[in-house]
């Protein structure tokens, strides 16, 4: 099951902070899909996942919306 988090229109650091809040409530191995419009979030979700031990399984962009698929493997 995938939880979807819409942070479109929000700017740094809100996408990361909202994602962290959402990940906290997930079980290990569960998926979080984040949709953002902040171009800075591309590098930021990469760094966030590395630092927190979560897995950024894929990321894509379409029409100015960045989609991140994160598997909870950390905190």
């Amino acid at each position, binding site marked *: 099951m995938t939880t979807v988090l819409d942070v479109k*229109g*929000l*700017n*740094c*650091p*809100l996408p*990361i*902070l909202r*994602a*962290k809040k959402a990940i906290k409530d997930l079980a290990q191995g569960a998926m979080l899909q984040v949709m953002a419009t*902040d171009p800075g979030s591309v590098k930021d979700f990469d760094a*966030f996942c590395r*630092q*927190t031990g979560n897995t950024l399984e894929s990321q894509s962009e379409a029409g100015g919306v960045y989609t991140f698929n994160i598997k909870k493997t950390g*905190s």
Partner: protein
Amino acid sequence: MSTPNKKMSIIVTKGTLDWAYPPFILATTAASMGLDVTLFFTFYGLGLLKKNLDLKITTLGNAAMEMPMMGMHMVMPNLVGALPGMDAMATTMMKNLIKKKGVASIPELRDLAIEAEVRMIACQMTLDLFEYSACDLIDGIEFAGAATYIEVAAQSDINLYI
């Protein structure tokens, strides 16, 4: 198996609307990335702990400040910026931009920092110097001095001064 969390401390010395952003952005982000964060509020930064935040910005002495306006960037000459009402105008413009661009407000970021259990220390000396009262400030903060900060900093991986 679990390693201790990394730690970050920031000395917060500025209390204008623009300079309030870096410490709160970094504190909330670091906390969300699993770091233990301590903010030490001193001198003009102490105002960021007031219950009622009414932060302002000034163009004075800020030659690098360019406000987007009608597709261009406006730079305020100091002589004009010194006129009555200009700070209020610049503050209103900045707050409108903040809303329009989906940037969090400072009260919002401060609430998120509290929620993330960021440790906030108010400089007792500044409190005495500027005659603030502890009851003007938000709950849940500590009151201490330089030695407390140095102890935190000596154990931290990242120490910033803003």
